[in-house]
């Protein structure tokens, strides 16, 4: 399970960073979303990976650490608000600047940058 979990986190953050480095706001937003998924999964795993252990004392023999779950919840809420904000900002930038390039200038014709 550890291997699968770390692979998922790694692939998510690698794709997120790749998309972040692209030149259009849409790919950047998708990249940010992927990166925040990776971060949330990573935070969740900081309490250790256990199966069949609830975060309540008495429910299971070895209760899981509840704090990472609380942290993830906070991080998800904040990340959600931030994604909403950056989407609106990107639309506003598209309207004001006339294109969706991060520098506000269109690249070369046919360039996918």
């Amino acid at each position, binding site marked *: 399970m550890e291997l699968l979990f770390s692979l998922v986190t790694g692939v998510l953050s690698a794709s997120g960073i790749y998309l972040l480095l692209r030149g259009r706001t849409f790919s950047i937003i998708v990249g940010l979303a992927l*990166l925040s998924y990776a971060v949330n999964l990573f*935070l969740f795993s*900081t309490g250790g990976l256990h199966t069949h252990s609830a975060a309540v004392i008495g429910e299971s023999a070895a209760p899981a650490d509840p704090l990472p779950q609380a*942290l993830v919840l906070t991080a998800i809420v*904040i990340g959600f608000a931030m994604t909403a*904000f950056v989407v609106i*900002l990107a639309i506003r930038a598209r309207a004001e600047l006339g294109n969706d390039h991060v520098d506000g200038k269109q690249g070369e014709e046919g360039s996918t940058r």
Partner: protein
Amino acid sequence: MSQHLLVFPILLPMLTALALLLMGQAPSQLQRRISIASTSLLVALSGVLLVHANSDVISVYNLGNWQAPYGIVLVLDRLSALMVALTAVLALGCILFASAGDDARGSNFHGIFQLQLLGLNGAFLTGDLFNLFVFFEILLLASYALLMHGGGKARIGAGLHYVVLNLVGSALFLIALGVLYGATGTLNMADMGYRITQLEEGNAALVTAGALLLTVVFSLKAAILPLYFWLPSTYASAPAPVAALFAIMTKVGLYALLRIQTLIFSESPAIVYIDAWLWWGGLATLLLAGIGALAARDLRTLVAYLVLVSVGTLMSGAGMGHISGTGALLYYLVHTTLIAGALFLLAELIGLQRGKAGTRLVRARKLQQSTLLGSMFLVGAVAMAGLPPLAGALGKLLLMQAADAFQRFWLWPLLLLAGLAAMIALSRAGSVFFWASYKGAPSGPRVTSLQLSGVTWLLVSAPLLVLFAGPVSHYTQATAEQLASPQHTIQTILPDVNAADFALRPEGDH
């Protein structure tokens, strides 16, 4: 009552913000009065906290009465009190200036401004790393909205970069928190600092990784060399009162760096890397920002680069890694934050009276009130470039004295060169604005009394900091000494920790 005093710098802006947001989007006279009154109250409150902290007591406030390290704590020591007071003083100047009409260019200015203060005060007072993250997000979200206030192409373009960079920074912050929590099992800063001293070998590498990640995140906020390229365009395009308030934003990063450097990682092997990073990064920032100031073609960009010069100066002070360096940098910090704020406000006033040329360094029509603006610009420029007799020179002198023999070799030439660059750039700007003007009747709006009071409130700090240099530098020196003995802080926050667990540290070292 008095034990609850600690939470008021957070509660007061929060309640004011809620009230203001409910009162409608366009600023009314009532909204302005409430906002100014609340910020003035914050200044008074932070004064009380400052006096309280000056008695060498570290006060701890357990939110919800949950004991540390299980609950979130607010901690007021000398450094927190100083930063909260600085924020309040700067904010009052900005809000006075904004009330003259800048607040009407977009919606909800005053409400968001108070939210920004909530985030700033919270970040300075909290004693919990995750809570610090939350307050960072509050202040960042408020700063995004304030930066975009009034709209316009330049703001949206610069804002997009700023937002995306800070979101990536937040992701790194969370990863660092995860690593540190996994390695130490706590998020309370004092508890983490204590547990790192008791750590077994296996987790030391993880702690170092987490520490360096945190350093990168805070360096992004503080704008040190490889991570500062967002700052000039962002600050230059922000509305004047917002840019002035942002002068404290880089100092939030510095504050967080000082905290982790002294309280959390002072006993960890990572401290060597952190000190080295701050020292060399600070020096490099100093050099490049000096060149940037010379190359700036606009007064706002110029002031933004001068903010970077001060960041470089402060960081190299933090990188010295000894008490007198920290004490000196704190004195310089108070001065540079207020003067940078004042210069941003002045730039706006100058730009308004120059018509289309704005703040660009080109010949334009004569200023309406060139004597008034010119004399204020002179005071601001002398203070910012660090010339005697104002506080900038004293701050630099303290820093140069604090450096030891090897450090002097690097710091003195760079600091003096950056000062020279700032002086040349500012005098060039001043002579273009006040002497190289076309003939013809001046026009443009006159400075209103509110704008004047905002700028004067901030500028007056330069002579005041010289007059009261004794008490202020005594306070900052005591702050540095308090920071250098984290075991005292740890014992105040966690009374159960055994004093014998701390090995005695060598004098004058973190």
